[in-house]
């Protein structure tokens, strides 16, 4: 019995300490969050972290017990004194707990977070404020157009494709792959993945299908300031895959408005 209680007490103490650390570290799991969705993912991740840490402590403690507490002493050659073949309480508890923990995690955060995300999408679609950005992936680059503003392809002063977003405004990305899509063309493009690390979300772009991603940016920043603020292709798509990235700027609403004007001028000028 001594081992049992000793182990239990140490486990509880260590778990509490570890969970306390996890609650702090877990807040930085996503490293940098710049959207509502990233914060949701961040919350889910730190919840998961807090849940798995006691399990981790339990097993690792047991490994240390094997190394030190239960280690065979020098010269002892006999069999173990304890020879339990089964312990109903232990097995029952283990099976029940792992079932409960898993079901629980499935309800929250798995299903709940996904539900929230899908509902956000629906709410954005209903809102008149929603900004629509058409994203086209092509070997090997991104292009962005803003149908609500008549911007066909946004570019920066060097002529590179660039993504500008206003802060705190819901965005719907409409993701398409480049290609004529007649279904039989061999020249059809390949699978890409639209990822902005700071937004905590990625969606694959499948040739012939249209996918949507919903984001509300919350932080004014850009690629120069923070490397996670970039549009990155995350699915291997050929030799140019490593170079398939674009700059991202999240700006204030008023700056966005003037950027739109400047883009329109650029477009009509050329």
């Amino acid at each position, binding site marked *: 019995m001594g081992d049992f209680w000793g182990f239990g007490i140490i486990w509880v103490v260590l778990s509490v300490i570890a969970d306390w650390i996890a609650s702090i570290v877990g807040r930085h799991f996503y490293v940098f969050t710049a959207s509502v969705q990233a914060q949701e993912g961040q919350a889910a991740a730190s919840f998961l972290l807090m849940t798995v840490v006691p399990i981790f402590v339990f097993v690792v403690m047991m490994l240390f017990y094997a190394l030190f507490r239960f280690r065979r002493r020098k010269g002892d050659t006999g069999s173990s004194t304890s020879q339990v073949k089964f*312990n109903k309480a232990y097995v029952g508890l283990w099976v029940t707990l792992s079932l409960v923990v898993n079901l629980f995690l499935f309800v929250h955060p798995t299903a709940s977070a996904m539900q929230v995300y899908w509902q956000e999408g629906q709410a954005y679609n209903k809102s008149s404020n929603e900004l629509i950005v058409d994203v086209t992936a092509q070997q090997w680059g991104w292009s962005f157009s803003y149908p609500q503003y008549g911007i066909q392809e946004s570019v920066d002063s060097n002529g590179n494709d660039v993504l500008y977003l206003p802060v705190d405004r819901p965005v719907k990305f409409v993701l398409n792959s480049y290609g004529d899509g007649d279904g039989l063309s061999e020249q059809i493009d390949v699978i890409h993945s639209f990822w902005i690390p700071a937004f905590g979300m990625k969606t694959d772009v499948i040739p012939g299908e249209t996918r949507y991603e919903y984001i509300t940016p919350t932080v004014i920043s850009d690629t120069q300031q923070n490397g996670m603020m970039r549009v*990155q292709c995350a699915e291997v798509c050929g030799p140019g895959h490593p170079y398939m990235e674009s700059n991202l700027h999240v700006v204030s609403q008023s700056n966005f408005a003037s950027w739109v004007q400047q883009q329109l001028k650029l477009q009509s000028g050329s």
Partner: protein
Amino acid sequence: MSVTPGNSPLQATGELPVVPRRRMSPPMKGVIWAAIGFLLLNSIVSGIDPDVLHSYVNQVSVVFGWMGAMVGWLFGVGGWDALVKPAFGFPLKWKETVGWRRYFEYSTDHKVIGIQYMVSSGLGFLIAGIAAMMMRLQLMSDHMWLFQYSKGYLTTVGVHGTIMMFSVGTVFMVGGLGNYLIPMMVGSNSSAFSRLSGISVWMVPAGIMTVAFSPLLGDWTTGWRGYQPLASQDGDGIIFYYLGVFILLLSSLIVALNLVATIVFKRAPGLTWNRLPMYAWGMLAVSFLNIIWIPEIMMTFILALLAKIVPLPLFTAVGSPMVYLQMFWLFGHPEVYIVVVPALALWMEILPVLSKKTLFARQWGVIGLVFVMLLSGMVWAHHLFPTQGNSTILPISFFTEMISIPTGFAFMVAIGTIWKSKFTLNTPSLLVLMSMFNFLIGGLTGVFLADPMVNMQLHDTFFVVGHFHYTIIGGMVFSSFAAMYYYLPKFSGRTFNDKWGQFGAYWIFIAFNATFFQFFIVGLRGMNRWVPVYPHYLMWQNFEISICAFLLGFGFLYNIGYIIWAWVKGPAAEENPWKAKTLEWYAPSPAVGTNFETEPQVVNGFYDYSDGAGEAVVFQS
């Protein structure tokens, strides 16, 4: 025909046949026949090809040429003399030799075959390991320097992943340890289909070489998953990826058939299902997975190959790229359990022996292995969370989270066995504990990946790369090293010095965790996969990860070198140094020749260490 039918080649004595007359070494003959086969078929196909613009070696001809080479190789190395001719009723001229030569020719001895599998697999580990080192070398800097073009790097990633998965992960513990141990473990003198098994092992080096030389045909950038439609427009090297994987899988399929039949039909009297050793249970579960999913992926690869060379538009047309992805992961997820289930089984095999304590809750360990096998066919699409439509996300996520339960049973059994035991701390048991630690991290990070919302961030980043290296290296490779140390006395009759063994174990443990734990962090910081170049802010950490990775690489070399040294020169071992009760320890050490002169009879379970427990095995003479 001068041969008289039924002219029996058999020797009357039961002794080992001696080397007959000098003959060309079979692998040499295999290589020559392979070259002839390639030239023959390639020329024929090239010749009848109506397209005059095609070069001598073109997409179609190289496929046929490769088939010719493969048939030539397998025939030359012994298949023709020992398999095909007898099958047509010609007298058998093939005789097995003794000594080291046995390992370089066709054999029907499951122990020779097992070692041939292990060595071939080790060869794959070295080749793919060199590829990994080249990748890490490139990643020390944020711009191209080692490779000239990114496609060269991406090809290296693909070669690394493919060889590691299909010739190491799938092969070492199943074709290697499984072939060697299982017949002994069930008290038999041979495996069920030893003639087939003798030829299947030679497919492994051929497959490894095919993949390793794929860049000769052209760079391919898809990585080990060969995603469509990219694969169809990729360089021609991808053809050798399909063919190499095909032959490696064929080998594993034959292993699976052989192991299932051996376990089911060749058990010694008294070896009931209730007494079957844990490693045999593991092999059984794995082999069932193999029998179902390997043919599935082989067919898929043939379709993909046709899509490449005919070309059929199978996976390029609108809507169908997803078909390939589904078909791939339908196999791909069971595949990862094919890799780890043997490791889980090995823990349960070794721990009771080294802690001299009865295996705890044995039936739950078995249930765990079986349920992992059953569930693994239902979770494939969690590799596609950001890829698939919304409707299937939650069900798949549900099963994914559920599969952690039976996996956890292995931990439950292991921990229950360790508890209050007298745990012998030596190299193999230490490696098992390390494997448990690593696999625990692999499994717990899997909980994050199973959550779709979090997955949307982690997918295709180095977090995932860290996760699966933790499960595969941490789980399977560490367990394989544990098995090598544990069974060394059986393999060679020699043993190792525990100090040097533990030194090696700590070395790879520390270097491994230093390397791959940082994969999680660098992934969370925004490092995506399949890139030789990356944003500058990630450079410092990548540099330092690479240093750790090189230490890990040398650590593996050290351990392999040390095991080889101990195998050849180590101090002599006792017959049964761990005082194990399982049947393989009743066979002679080193296990050469006949396993059991008289048929063993199993009268008790193997894992009972209580004082009253009698011997598990008796031999009636």
